[in-house]
């Protein structure tokens, strides 16, 4: 795996926590997906489209989870992202349907604007007024859903040509599979997946090769030490929330591209899904450890669990949740073992 060890880690050196947790995540995901593809090949698991549907379904969550991982690496938390996504979907639908001259570009700007506003305000409260991030973003969560309901209580479908054209864009891939009639069908991705993949790549580079990215780790690892090392701790925390807000804005736009409707009840539980995906991806709740690529895999793992459980014939809506819970427990125990090893 070429993305690990680019920092030139010498042979025989103990692994860093970030690398260790990332490897476990990737191995688990691959083992899970490959065994499902073998066991349930009759149910379409071996088909490439099954995998790309996983991406299509989860593109928005991938982007939002990346934002959350960044906040968590810096030692914070943001539980307002689900509410923000709902608010963005509602605001954008109203904007697209009811306003003259609106199009996908203006709705993208609106989505980013809402995300940025939340990020700036929440970041200011957390970093400069030193208020618990959980409390600040809890307020943000309630505010966002409330604001969405103030704008529109009904579920509305997007009726805007430029936006719909974009939403229906399909990127055909050179791989595919035979359908029941023996016709070759190309696999496809939605536009949102491209956005998500570019975001993941850009953030991966940011976290590893920029001063800001490493400052996030330093602040999350030990605030006091980061200060002594000459890092602007407050600004770093502030920027982590701003970035998370912006990413939620982008994620909200991708969400709308996929569902093409706005509703107060949209994206319910997204904040928890994003936290779960981050943790499965190797981000530690205590901060300082995490990896964007891991978060990406974390979202896919979470999505694949649902598919696999359904393929196993466990139709109850509770099964994916229970499986996910078991997985989270495993990762949290792993993290606490790592932490206690360090303290010893």
């Amino acid at each position, binding site marked *: 795996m070429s993305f690990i060890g*680019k920092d030139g880690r010498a042979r025989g*050196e103990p692994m860093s926590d970030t690398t260790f947790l990332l490897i476990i995540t990737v191995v688990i995901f691959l083992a899970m997906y490959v065994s499902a593809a073998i066991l349930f090949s009759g149910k379409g698991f071996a088909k490439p489209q099954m995998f790309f549907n996983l991406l299509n379904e989860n593109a928005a969550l991938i982007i939002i989870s990346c934002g959350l991982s960044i906040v968590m690496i810096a030692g914070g938390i943001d539980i307002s992202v689900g509410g923000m996504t709902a608010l963005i979907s509602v605001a954008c639908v109203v904007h697209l349907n009811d306003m003259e001259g609106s199009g996908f570009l203006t709705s993208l700007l609106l989505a980013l604007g809402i995300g940025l506003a939340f990020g700036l305000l929440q970041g200011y409260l957390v970093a400069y007024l030193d208020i618990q991030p959980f409390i600040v973003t809890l307020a943000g969560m309630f505010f966002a859903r409330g604001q969405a309901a103030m704008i529109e209580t009904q579920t509305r479908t997007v009726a805007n040509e430029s936006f719909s054209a974009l939403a229906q864009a399909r990127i055909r891939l050179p791989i595919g599979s035979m359908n029941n009639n023996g016709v070759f069908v190309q696999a496809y991705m939605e536009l949102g997946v491209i956005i998500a993949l570019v975001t993941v790549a850009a953030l991966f580079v940011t976290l590893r090769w920029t001063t800001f990215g490493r400052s996030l780790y330093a602040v999350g690892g030990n605030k006091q030490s980061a200060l002594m090392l000459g890092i602007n701790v407050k600004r770093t925390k502030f920027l982590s929330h701003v970035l998370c807000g912006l990413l939620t804005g982008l994620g909200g736009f991708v969400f709308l591209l996929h569902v093409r409707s706005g509703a107060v009840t949209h994206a319910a539980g997204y904040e928890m899904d994003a936290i779960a995906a981050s943790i499965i991806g190797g981000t530690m709740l205590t901060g300082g450890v995490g990896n964007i690529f891991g978060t990406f895999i974390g979202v896919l793992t979470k999505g694949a669990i649902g598919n696999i459980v359904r393929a196993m014939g466990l139709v109850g809506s509770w099964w994916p949740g229970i499986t996910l819970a078991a997985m989270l427990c495993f990762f949290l125990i792993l993290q606490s073992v790592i932490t206690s090893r360090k303290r010893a």
Partner: protein
Amino acid sequence: MGAGILLTMRGVSKSFPGVRALKGVDFTLREGEIHALMGENGAGKSTLIKVLTGVYSKDAGEIRLAGHPRALNVRSPREAQDLGISTVYQEIGLCPNLTVAENMFMGRSKSPFLNWREINGKTARILGELGIPAKPERQLANCSLAVRQMVAIARAVDMNCRALILDEPTSSLDESEVEGLFALMGDLRARGVGIVFVTHFLDQVYRVCDRITVLRNGDLVGEYPLAELPRLALIEKMMGKELQELSGVHAEARDYGGLTPVVEVEGLRSDQGIAPFDFRNYPGEVTGFTGLLGSGRSECVRAIFGADKVTGGRVRVKGKAARITKPLEAMRLGMAYLPEDRARDGIVSDLSVRDNIILALQVMKGFFRPFTRKKATELAEGFIGLLSVKAASLDTPVGTLSGGNQQKVILARWLLTKPDYLILDEPTRGIDVGTKTEIQKLIVRLAAEGMGVTFISSEIEEMLRTCSRLIVLRDRKVVGTVSGSELTQDNVMRTIAEGSASPAGAAPPDGSAA
């Protein structure tokens, strides 16, 4: 500024509400010297360092640095670093989740991008030059404490530091790690760096330092070349001798031959790094653990009480073998412990006086059998009277009382459990003189009633007055025992300095006194 002088502090004063932490202190650091800053608890060492590094602002005085025409006004640790004054703190100040190289260069570059190859290369070179056994790519958490400390020093050196302050750098290192650190310090001295070395370990001071500055109670006692200040003189200067020869007041040494010790330990040690020690306390006897701050006084009694993790040794309580792994077991065996840090380990400041007093007894009885309010009031009132606690009522939250009264409340809590053996760790710190005397009298009275008491205090004359036998510690090791007619300040200090066991002592062999 004279030749070779790197840094001078003149007439530096600093007050906190209610305390004058520094009173016109002078300090001079020269190029290429290791300068020990010594003093007991509250002497003002850490305040002086924090003023120098910009953590605190000074109230008066001036700081001058060679090469700067004007007096400095250091406002933040960052500014101090830029001036070439770096501090390596006990708890280090690096990020364990980052690599060694990142810790060396984090926060120093203006570039938005990180060139891993460059910082790894530079780090490898610096580590090699200074002989630090670490790899740049290694995560800091995977390095030993000693290496982490050296990395912090290397960072400071690479930032062109001219004055390096090491605050208790050796307290959690083993002997070979200390050697490595000293070698590094010697290397830096040769390069002309001025090092301020703060430590509690006297042996280490005499091994590496060139000069000693002693502070006491915020005052400068003096600055001495190492050769002109023998160990005993240093201890005298640190402890002060004003109250000397108050002895004779203390309890007479008695013959406890026929009695069974209320507690007896052999080879006891804990995970806090104290050397195995033997100790016994007879009923009616007041013993004390003495030594400089950090010598392991508290660690010894915490091991006896099971407050730290005991890693070896035997304990007998009232003649019966016992295994104490946690404080509750010690309490059930009739022991009580009044901890050193009452704010952290003792007082529950939001609870009322009554609830604080019955707390220990309630724990022993079990939480599912609560005392009635009437019974609790009765118990609490008895002791409030006995100890003359000044509180508005039994319902007053303990946090609102004065330090002395808080201490009495905790004392009442333990006396209520009717212990056979009572440990008082610094019960008189931070309380007024009148209350101090009351507590001392109470200790003697409790002993007269047959209780075994162990008493710890930083003020040696207080211990001489109350105890009939003193166990002397140095560098986490018992170095001697002083008892009976030999209980004088001179003898205690000599024992601390030389580790010479007095004839009556039962000290383990110890040849380390240089």
